[in-house]
């Protein structure tokens, strides 16, 4: 008997349910609009599931707490919005260099700073990629529907566990607060991190297997686990040897970039014969799809390339989708972020941006009008 549950609820609720289904049993956070429902649900549900909800003093502490909980073997997550995401960047780097799987949900609102707390934006696209300093790669997933909030949160945990890396689940105020029907799937694929199996005395917490990923012991296991934010050798002790440094930095980068195809999710709509290809993510992708339908009805061959994995950006997939398109339009709720990545990838094409940063989402007619303008 299937115990699938159909619910009518928010994107934020679906993110929380996805996290629980993926096996998350620890949440530490500082509630902030428009992500607060995730904290609220976690505070109610996690104790029922035998997990822990911790209300933290701030977002620096939240990020530190989920790193600690994950290092002790429990799948962990937090949720925030732009101002809190800024405060998490330092410890996000600790999770990257310490190779600690965890999931950070950022429900984007209009900034900078406190900005417009209840209004949407997509202005953290670059912060999600480059917010923490130093050379690094990072995985960022971005749902556009309530069902995708559930499915991609499960996937975010799976990727984090598979790669021993933090994963960002980026949404926006519209997606986070929007309500739709969604299914809490009964059967989902759940991946758990690799554990060490060999002799205890030979375990090195940062010695990768052939796949580039080291098995991870938990604090409290019989294996000796070490985490440092400094560049370290396979044993987890600080190491300033340039050969070691290069190996460590490159391995952390390559373990993600070499698997880009495996973790890339995209949706395409009428791209095959499109003269003008729209590239959009999050809520804006839904506006763009409605715009494509309207434009097609008016005889304009528009199509939509909709990345659900935005970092690493699906470069190969975009090139393929854009092969026959003459012009590219990138609508986004910011003054220009994703458009630069698209320009970099499609150097030979004419790439246009449509940017809106006033606390309102883009409207269907705005995309339709812009397509008509650039199609001339």
């Amino acid at each position: 008997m299937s115990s699938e549950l159909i619910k009518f609820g928010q994107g934020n609720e679906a993110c929380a349910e996805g996290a629980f289904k993926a096996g998350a049993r620890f949440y530490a956070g500082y509630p902030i609009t428009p992500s607060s429902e995730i904290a609220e649900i976690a505070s109610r549900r996690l104790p029922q599931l035998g997990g822990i909800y911790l209300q933290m003093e701030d977002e620096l502490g939240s990020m530190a707490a989920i790193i600690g909980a994950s290092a002790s073997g429990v799948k962990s997550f937090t949720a925030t919005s732009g101002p809190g995401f800024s405060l998490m960047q330092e410890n996000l780097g600790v999770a990257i260099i310490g190779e600690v799987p965890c999931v950070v949900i950022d429900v984007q609102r209009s900034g900078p700073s406190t900005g417009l707390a209840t209004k949407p934006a997509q202005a953290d696209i670059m912060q999600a990629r480059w917010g923490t300093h130093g050379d690094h790669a990072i995985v960022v997933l971005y749902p556009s529907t309530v069902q995708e909030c559930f499915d991609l949160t499960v996937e975010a945990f799976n990727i984090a566990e598979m790669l021993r890396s933090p994963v960002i689940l980026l949404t926006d105020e519209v997606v986070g607060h929007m309500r739709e029907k969604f299914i809490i799937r009964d059967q989902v694929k759940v991946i758990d991190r690799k554990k060490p199996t060999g002799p205890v005395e030979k375990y090195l917490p940062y010695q990768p297997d052939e796949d580039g990923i080291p098995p991870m012991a938990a604090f409290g296991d019989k294996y000796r686990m070490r985490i440092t934010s400094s560049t370290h050798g396979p044993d987890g002790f600080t190491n300033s040897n340039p050969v070691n440094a290069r190996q460590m930095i490159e391995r952390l980068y390559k373990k993600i970039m070499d698997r880009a195809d495996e973790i890339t999710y995209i949706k395409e709509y009428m791209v095959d014969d499109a003269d003008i290809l729209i590239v959009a993510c999050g809520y804006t992708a839904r506006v763009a799809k409605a715009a494509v339908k309207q434009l097609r009805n008016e005889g304009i061959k528009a199509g939509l390339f909709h990345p659900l994995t935005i970092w690493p950006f699906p470069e190969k997939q975009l090139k393929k989708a854009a092969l026959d398109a003459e012009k590219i339009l990138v609508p986004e709720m910011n003054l220009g972020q994703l458009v630069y990545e698209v320009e970099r990838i499609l150097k030979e094409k004419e790439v246009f941006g449509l940017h809106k940063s006033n606390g309102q989402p883009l409207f269907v007619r705005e995309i339709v009008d812009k397509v008509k303008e650039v199609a001339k």
Partner: protein
Amino acid sequence: MSNDYQVIFSGEGGQGLVLAGTILAEAAAIFEGKYATQTVDYGIASRGGFAMSEVKISDEEIDCPELIEPDYIVALTEDAFNRFEKEAGKSVIIFDSDAFSPALEGDNIKGCPFTTTLRRLAEEYGNKARINVLAIGAVLGLKEIVSLQAMRKVFEKNFGAKNADINMKVLQAGIEMTRS
């Protein structure tokens, strides 16, 4: 597309208009098996300030929750009315005639005594009578875009059987305000 409906509930924070949208959309999505979306727009104040929710109901999967041509707009404050009066040509606007008197008039602009009706209901049901349920009723009085059976079920699911009875009575009072 004849079975597609777009509804806006607008007014100020604290009137329960987000909940009105949620309840109507949930009734359609869960208890009538349709597709429905609900989105919100409100400010940082928990009471006061402009607030609204938008509902789209369709037999087909909904690409985009944005409302293009709303069928019905409930405006419980003058501020909300002023924001939407330009839609009067295409949409039916329902407003609280006890709260303000708009200069704009027309067949598509329907004044309803929300405040006095609510006061009368409150004498019987206390604070369990809510203006947001009255607002849903006012829309259903013009067109039963969601069945009353589905509304009862959604009330029962969210508020329990006893409160569902009260809510159905408030809903009925809303329906009577607009049913011609």
